[in-house]
């Protein structure tokens, strides 16, 4: 009956209808329906909890970087300069801590704290600090957010997206299963082993990770004429540093408490993705926040690289990461940042 109601002028039961609230007719189907809904919820929740390896690569990296990664002992007593660089997946693929440290010599140890599709850095920084991992320098490729007010009470209830993800924490699970099955051709054990090995390697590489499944060109390099319609080759992607920000206030509080410095450093773009950053910014070394310790902006808002150094429209390939890491190290050396 219910199907045909979609397309019919089916009669609406009027006040004379025989069934009413509380009648026996309601009880069984309602209990069955609600019971099945709950049962499915429990099954999906159980599968989601039992099979974390199924989650997408980005989620697996996110989870590992937010948990296991920051809970390890990151720095040793001989590490005079302790660096954490934050940003999104561009940082994950673009900054290679081993090469960065080598360009400075002994006593420098860095970690790539980038998270997939995430520019917020405070939760991860706070988690690291709580484990006793205290940096001397925090490098930000994106400035803090502009939230000037604390979230209102019951903010969750106002945000349907957050609310549904809270009610169904396994929401991504069915998609992940499909992707996993597709990527590994239903060889689940092999897939689970591979994901685990990737996470282990990411931790050995101190947070650097190459997003191989997004690379679709030979040698992981885009062709020279590569462009996509969303490119804005005449537009400069200027970085705005919000003047008022709760995140900034908290960052300054942590910087004072733990004694680390904050440096805003360049990220990167692909040729044609945006116009090159103004040449006048190349030697910039500006104090943006006259607090203690100072917050400095060093260099341009971003570097620009040829498409052959990219594995996909957004992320550097291993050749590109070496170039970005070296250029960033050279810039920081030049400005005696450490």
């Amino acid at each position, binding site marked *: *009956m*219910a*199907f045909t109601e979609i*397309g019919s002028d089916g009669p609406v*039961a009027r006040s004379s209808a025989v069934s009413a*609230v509380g009648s026996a007719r309601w009880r069984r189907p309602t209990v069955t*329906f609600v019971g099945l809904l709950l049962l499915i919820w429990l099954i999906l929740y159980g599968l989601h909890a039992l099979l974390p390896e199924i989650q997408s690569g980005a989620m697996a990296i996110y989870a590992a970087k937010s948990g296991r990664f920051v809970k390890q002992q990151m720095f040793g007593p001989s590490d005079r300069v302790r660096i954490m660089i934050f940003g999104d997946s561009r940082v994950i693929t673009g900054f290679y801590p081993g090469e960065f440290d080598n360009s400075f010599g002994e006593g420098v140890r860095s970690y790539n704290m980038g998270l997939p599709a995430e520019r917020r850095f405070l939760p991860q920084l706070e988690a690291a600090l709580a484990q006793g991992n205290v940096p001397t320098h925090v490098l930000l490729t994106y400035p803090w957010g502009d939230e000037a007010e604390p979230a209102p009470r019951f903010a969750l209830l106002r945000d349907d997206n957050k609310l*549904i993800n809270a*009610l169904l924490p396994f929401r991504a699970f069915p998609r992940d299963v499909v992707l996993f099955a597709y990527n590994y051709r239903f060889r689940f054990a092999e897939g689970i082993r591979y994901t685990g090995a990737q996470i282990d390697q990411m931790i050995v590489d101190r947070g650097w990770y190459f997003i191989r499944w997004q690379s679709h060109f030979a040698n992981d390099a885009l062709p020279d004429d590569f462009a996509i*319609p969303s490119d804005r080759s005449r537009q400069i992607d200027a970085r705005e540093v919000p003047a008022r920000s709760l995140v900034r206030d908290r960052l300054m509080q942590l910087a004072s408490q733990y004694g680390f410095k904050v440096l805003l450093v360049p990220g990167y773009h692909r040729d044609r993705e945006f116009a090159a950053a103004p040449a006048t910014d190349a030697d910039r070394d500006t104090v943006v926040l006259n607090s203690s310790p100072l917050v400095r902006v060093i260099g341009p808002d971003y570097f620009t690289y040829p498409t052959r150094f990219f594995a996909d429209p957004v992320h550097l390939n291993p050749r590109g990461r070496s170039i970005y890491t070296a250029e960033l190290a050279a810039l920081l050396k030049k400005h005696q940042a450490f």
Partner: protein
Amino acid sequence: MLFNSFEFVAFFAAFLAVFFTAPTRLQPYTLLVASYVFYMSWRPSFALLLALTTVVDYTTAVVMVRSRSQAARRAAMLTALTINLGILGTVKYLDFMITNAIGVMGLLGYNLSHETLGLVLPLGISFYTFQSISYTLDVYHRRVEAEHNFLTYAQYVSFFPQLIAGPIERAAHMLPQFRIGHRLTYDNLTSGLFLVGWGLFKKMCIADAIGPAVNSIYTSPADYAGTYQIVAAVLFAIQIYCDFSGYSDVARGTARIMGVDLMINFRQPYFATSLQEFWHRWHISLSTWFRDYLFIPLGGSRGGELSVARNLMIVFVVSGIWHGAAWTFAAWGTIHGAGLVIERAVIRLVRPEIWLAAPARRLIGWCWMMIVVLVGWVFFRSSSIANAIDALQSMTQLGAVSYFTFKMLNLASVEMMMLMISLTVLLVVDFHLAFRAGRLEALGCRRWVSTGAGIAIVYYILLFGVFGHLEFIYFQF
């Protein structure tokens, strides 16, 4: 307060609890208060115009009933029309007219400073104004009795399930339903919830999943080659159908739960095999409104082909402008009007029923309908006539497509697969509704099928639907 939000779920659940536990005599008050609360959740001041429209048309009808002369009735009717259309014209079209007048003056060499009033368009005003006007005209033509109970009439104008985007109902159908008490029944609840679920599936799993890709292409059309323009036109055709018919289904479903029947607004329009049939299946409440209150008074199908063509063109240009104060909507209406005129002429001159088999006629008719409809949607969705023409021109030069562009448009890998699954479900259900309704009916009688389908819809929406307060397209009209 959008249908596709948890806010509405909470509001509707609270409303139902009060509505069905209240004594029958208090139900109209409950419904009226809820309707105004619902409407005022966007902007409280909008309610003033809604109340004004209600008072004007209620009073006009009473005056017409009490008038002894036809001239007085006519004067009352014209007064109400002037006020209704005056309000609609001012808030919806005045800025558009000022801008165009200044443009014309500029062409004549008079450069005037460009000032508009910047009026905010109250939500749903085009819908409830037309609904209210239909009542006034029906009373004037004695097709319906004037409603003497103000409370009943106020419910008719402000009934919240269909207040913002229709269906545009008629007094003869709705007023009797507001005169009786309502009880929650099992059949109304289950069939109503099924309609709500189906509508939300179309809105949240298809229309909102497609929306970002369509927006990206139409925001900067020059950046996308012809292939993408074709993809965008097809996707927008699907998006607007799922968005608007989804809204109508939710409206019908929520009303059904209350025990109120709303008319069907869509009957699988893309299965039409002629443009004329398309308009019998698309936004039925608006097309029948224009048929009854504009096309027939203009002369309808009586008279020669030229006068019919003139009437069709007038109706469709007005229908286009009804959608919004922009030349793109006028162009959309013109394309459909011209398409119908051409279709009538071809059928009359060529007489395909004589020499062409029915399946071939249907196929050709479907292709013709889809071409006109898709070209129309390009104008409807574009931000200017020039952009629409550019988009159509670029469709003649198909360029290469790239995986990464589809990925940037959110149409790659899993997203594309989910969309394909959703569209297949839509196609299968719509096909059965259009051609195999009996089979669906037989399936629906089996309880386990109904229960399974209900659970599948709930979980499909929860797992794959787009949450985040995305408005319905027709809210802007």
